[in-house]
């Protein structure tokens, strides 16, 4: 069981007051990071994705077929973004060597800390609202294997209501009972491979989004990358001055 994820969802469930998405007023950038320089090499780490189906009785079953499809769509989306945005994207092949496994495990734990304490409701006063976490020197293994400047980690857990479940939701609504239909939780982080510092991170929790087909999968990734990369067209000629609030 993904202990980190369970931990997070538990806290989120307990903290949710109404059904609204959790407000994101937290900064996405680490102090000192402005944006990805054009020509920066970004290694796309194999995405950690899991899709579930919620049955009529409210039980979540992992759906290997949906998950496999989602992984393909996400991979394709990143490849497509590469062409549009002039970044060099390196597709890191699935690596099960011990240093990479250990790095991935640490990354999940650090991502969990950022999710819970930075974007979540349990802010650590010592962090002073800054995004200030690192993966340490272990990132060297990725830098050595790929020659990249940054690594992008993607973590998504997504659930979808089955037909039975949807029927239950409709019936429930008749009696004023809200039944959760499914939640998409996405967490993306960009790591500086020279220092190990997490320079940018974003978290999306919403009841919409669909990774099972190509178009909506692209939409999900675009939403998650909001703020890191411009979405359409070339960058505007005169960027607006950055205010202190952007940090």
């Amino acid at each position: 069981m993904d202990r980190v994820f369970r931990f997070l969802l538990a806290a989120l469930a307990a903290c949710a007051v109404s059904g609204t998405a959790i407000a994101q007023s937290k900064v996405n950038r680490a102090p000192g990071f402005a944006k990805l320089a054009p020509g920066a090499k970004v290694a796309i780490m194999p995405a950690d994705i899991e899709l579930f189906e919620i049955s009529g009785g409210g039980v979540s079953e992992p759906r290997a077929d949906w998950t496999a499809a989602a992984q393909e769509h996400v991979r394709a989306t990143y490849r497509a973004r590469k062409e549009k945005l002039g970044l060099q994207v390196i597709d890191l092949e699935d690596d099960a060597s011990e240093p990479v496994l250990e790095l991935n495990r640490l990354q999940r734990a650090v991502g969990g800390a950022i999710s819970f304490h930075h974007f979540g409701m349990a802010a650590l006063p010592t962090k002073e609202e800054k995004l200030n976490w690192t993966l340490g020197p272990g990132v060297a293994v990725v830098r050595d294997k790929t020659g990249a400047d940054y690594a992008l980690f993607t973590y998504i857990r997504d659930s979808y209501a089955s037909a039975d479940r949807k029927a239950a939701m409709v019936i429930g609504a008749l009696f004023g009972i809200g039944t959760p239909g499914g939640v998409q939780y996405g967490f993306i982080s960009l790591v500086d491979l020279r220092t190990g510092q997490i320079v940018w991170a974003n978290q999306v929790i919403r009841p919409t989004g669909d990774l099972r087909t190509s178009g909506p999968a692209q939409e999900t990734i675009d939403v998650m990358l909001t703020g890191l990369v411009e979405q359409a067209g070339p960058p505007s000629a005169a960027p607006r001055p950055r205010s202190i609030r952007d940090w």
Partner: protein
Amino acid sequence: MKFRILFAALALAVLAGCTTVVKVGPGQVTVKDMTLTLEGPWNKFESSALVLFQAPGATEIWTREGFTLDVLAFYFGIGDGETIGQALPRRTTKMPVFRLKMAPHEIVEAFETVVTQDGSILKVVKIEPARFAGGDGFRFEYELKRKGDSLLFNGIGFATVANKKLYLMAYSAPRTHYFPTLVPGLEAAARSATLKR
């Protein structure tokens, strides 16, 4: 891998409102009857529910980088015949009981029982006499493999029996980068501990 929102909500049933974390230090901080003089600030967790996952039944839990990463657990003021720690939800393992007669080796065995309820594997690599909180005590170092995600941790603990009570503080952090970076601060905090004996 699965959602278990229902289970989680149940486990956190005591959570009233959201998690609060408060700053402690720098300077003097009191935990139970013990006073620590901190060189830098730490984060203290205020809700009892999270305790269940990371350090079941601890008196207090602190962290610097976040509870999924480093955890400082205090098991302070445990008297003769009192339980050390707390069983995780739906676990039926009996929690160990502190006895004045316990040798340091046995106290560490008890500590291990408490923190490995979830199937994590703990290995003690060092245990030696040490001064702690102004009296005789012991210090131990350990390695921990967390069950849920296989992440490897290094850990260090300090303990003493004073006024017929057990005072044990244990700190663990990921062995890559985090533990070596953070342990000096922890050792300074442990050295600063004082207790009226």
